[in-house]
C-alpha cells in the first residue's frame, strides 16, 4: 500500500532535515503505529504524506500502490484514497460540517466516475456514523470544528474518515487531548474501518490508543528516521522504558551513518515478517 524510501525533508528554507532518510512500508490491510519523542518528525511525516505546503522534499520517494504520491496535489491524494486526521483540526466558521462532508464525498465519487450521492442515502449514512461517534446531530449544521472542544474535534475527524472510507488513513495524534471515554469512542471508530483492503497509520506519543487499536507493527521515529521496528510489544516496552534507550541505540558515530542507514532500511521497514 504505502512505500516510503529514503525520504529526506526540510522545512522551508532551513537546511536541517526534519526527515532524514526515512524508510517505511505499510502493507495493505495492516495497522502500523509510529511513535517517537517530541520533535522526532512524526507530524512532519503525516503532513508530507498529505501534501501540506511548506516542506521541501530533498530526496526519496513515496508511493501509494505504486503510484508516486509526492507529485500529487493534496486533493488528488485524497481522491486516491488518502486521509489525514489532523492533530489540530482547523476551525472554519461559515462552512458547515454537513456541507463539507457532502462536498468531500462527492469529490471522491466524481473522481471514481460515480454520480453525486443521493441526499437521502447520504443523510442515512451520516446519521449512522454520527451515532457511532456519539456526536449530536446538531453538530452537522454548525461551522466546521467551530467552537468544538478538543475531543469533539477529534471525533469529528474520525466521523469524516468513516464517511470517506479512505484506503490509507494517517491519524496524527488523534488520541491527544481525549479523556478515556472519548478515547474509546475514537478507537471504536478506527476499528470499524479496519479491513483487509485498508491500511492505517497511527502517529502517537503514547501507548494508550494502542490498547484499543492493536497495531500489527510499531515503529519508533528518532531524529527523522525509523530507529526501531517491532510488533505491539515494542509499544509496551516504550511505555515502560521511555524513548531514551532507542535514542541512544540510534546514536551512531557519523562515520558509520551511511552503513547504518543501509542496514536500517532492511531491518527497519514495516514489512511484516
Amino acid at each position, binding site marked *: 500500500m504505502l512505500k516510503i524510501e529514503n525520504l529526506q525533508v526540510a522545512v522551508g528554507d532551513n537546511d536541517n532535515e526534519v526527515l532524514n532518510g526515512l524508510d517505511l512500508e505499510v502493507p495493505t490491510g495492516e495497522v502500523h503505529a509510529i511513535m517517537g519523542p517530541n520533535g522526532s518528525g512524526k507530524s512532519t511525516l503525516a503532513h508530507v504524506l498529505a501534501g501540506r505546503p511548506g516542506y521541501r522534499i530533498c530526496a526519496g520517494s513515496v508511493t501509494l500502490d505504486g503510484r508516486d504520491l509526492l507529485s500529487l*496535489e493534496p486533493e488528488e491524494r*485524497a481522491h486516491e484514497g488518502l486521509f489525514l486526521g489532523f492533530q489540530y*483540526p482547523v476551525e472554519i466558521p461559515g462552512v458547515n460540517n454537513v456541507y463539507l462532508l457532502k462536498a468531500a464525498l462527492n469529490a471522491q465519487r466524481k473522481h471514481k466516475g460515480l454520480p453525486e450521492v443521493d441526499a437521502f442515502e447520504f443523510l442515512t449514512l451520516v446519521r449512522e456514523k454520527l451515532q457511532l461517534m456519539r456526536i449530536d446531530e446538531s453538530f452537522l449544521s454548525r461551522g466546521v470544528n467551530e467552537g468544538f472542544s478538543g475531543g469533539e474535534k477529534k471525533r469529528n475527524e474520525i466521523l469524516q474518515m468513516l464517511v470517506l472510507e479512505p484506503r490509507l488513513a494517517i491519524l496524527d495524534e488523534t488520541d491527544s487531548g481525549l479523556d478515556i471515554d472519548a478515547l474509546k469512542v475514537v478507537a471504536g471508530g478506527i476499528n470499524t474501518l479496519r479491513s483487509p483492503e485498508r491500511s492505517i497509520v497511527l502517529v502517537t506519543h503514547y501507548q494508550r490508543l494502542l490498547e484499543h487499536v492493536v497495531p500489527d507493527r510499531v515503529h519508533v521515529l528518532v531524529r527523522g528516521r525509523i530507529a526501531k521496528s517491532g510488533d505491539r510489544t515494542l509499544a509496551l516496552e516504550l511505555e515502560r522504558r521511555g524513548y531514551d534507550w532507542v535514542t541512544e541505540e540510534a546514536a551512531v558515530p557519523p562515520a558509520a551513518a551511511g552503513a547504518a542507514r543501509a542496514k536500517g532500511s532492511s531491518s527497519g521497514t514495516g514489512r511484516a515478517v
Partner: protein
Amino acid sequence: MSTVSSRIADDFAAAEQYLPASVLSTERRRSALQALQAQGLPTSREENWKYVNLRPLEKVRFAPLAARTGKAITVADLPPQLLGYARYTFVDGVFAPELSSAVDRPGVLIEPMRRTSQPRPAVGGLEARQSGDLRFALLNDAFATDGASIRIAAEIDCPACVELVFVAATDSREAASYPRVDLAVASGARVGLIERHVSIGNDANFVNCAVSISAARASFVQHYRIQQTGARAQWYDTLSADLAESARYQLFSVHLGALTARSTVNIQLNGERAEVDLYAVSVGDARQVHDTYARIEHIAPRTRTSQSFRGISSGRARVAFNGKVTVSAGAYGTDSRQSLRGLLAGTEAEIDVRPQLEIYTDDVRCSHGATAGKLDDDMLFYLLSRGLERETAQRLLKWAFLEDVVAKIEVPELRRQIEQSLAGQLKEAAALQELL
C-alpha cells in the same frame, strides 16, 4: 472656486425654481449651498477621501430632473418585495406611488416629503446636534427633491416595517438623484427599516443620498442598507444617527454595486447606555471602489458599540473601511469593539482597513482587530485534504469569510436575497447554489 463648486452653483441657480419648498425651504437650501461652498467638496488629498476617485464629479449635472421623463418602470424591474413590509419606491429621488404599496399600521407614519408640510430637519449639519463630515449631505440639502419621512410613535412595535427602494434611472450628464430619509423613532418603539439602492438601465448614475435617524429613549432601530446600483454608477451617501438613553441601533450595510460608492456614517451616542452595532459587507470587483468611513462618537457614559466589517476585493477593485471611534471625556464605562477584515482575491486588488481610536477618558474597554490578507492557508489545506478541488475550496472560504457577518441579518428572506447577490458578485452563483 473649483470647477465642481461653480458647476454646483450654476446648476442650483438653474434648478432653484422647481425644487420643492415642501421638502426644504428655499432659505435652507441656499444656506446649505453657502455652507458647502465655504467648506468646499472633499478632495482626494484629504486623508479620509483618498480612496475615492472624485474626478468624475467634474462631469456631473448636479440638478435633479424637473419632472420624471420617459422610462417606464414596472414592479417587475424592482427587487422582489418582502412580505409584511410597506414598500415606498422613489425613482431618481422622487416618490413613485405606482411602484409602492403602503401598509396601514397604527403609530407608523410614512410620508413622501413632498406631500407633507411637517417641519423636518436638514441633514447637512444645520442642527447643532450633528457633526462629522457632512459635505455631501449639504449637497443633498441644496437639491433635495423628495424623500421618505418616517415617524414611529412611542411604544409601537414594528419589526418588519418599511422598505424603501431608491431607483436611479438617469445618466449623470443629464441629472442627479438625491435619495433622502428622515426617520424619527419615539421612546420604546421598535422599527425595522430596509433601504435599497438600485439602478435601472446601464447609465452612469450620480446618486447622493442623505439619511438622518433619531432614536429616542429605549427605542430599537434595525436598519438594512443594500447598495446595488449599476456598474457605472457613482454613489455617495451620508448617514447621520443620534441615539438617546438606552436606544439601540443596528446598521447592516451591504455594498455590491456602483463603480464608485462612498458612504460616510456619523453616529453619536448621546444618551447613557445607548448601543450601536454596525455590520458592513463590501464585495468589489473589476475597477470598483467601495469606501466606507464610519465615525462613531461615544458621548454619554456606559455606551456600547461594535463594528464588524468584511470586505473582498477582486480584479482591480479597491475596498476600504475606515472605522473611527471617539470616546469623549464624559463617556466613562464605554465598551467599543472593532473587527475589520479584508480579503484580497486578486493580485491587482486593494484592501484598506483602518481602525482608529481616540479616547479622552479612563475606564473604557476598547478593542480593535484589523486584518487584510489572502485566504487562510491552514483552512485551505484542510479542505483540500478532504478532496475538495482547489477552486471549490477557495470559493467556499470566500463565502465563509462573508457569511460570518451576513449571518447576522435577521430577516430570512432578505438574507437569502443578499446571499444570492453576493454569490452573483463573486461570480459563483451556480457553484454556491447548494449553500443558498
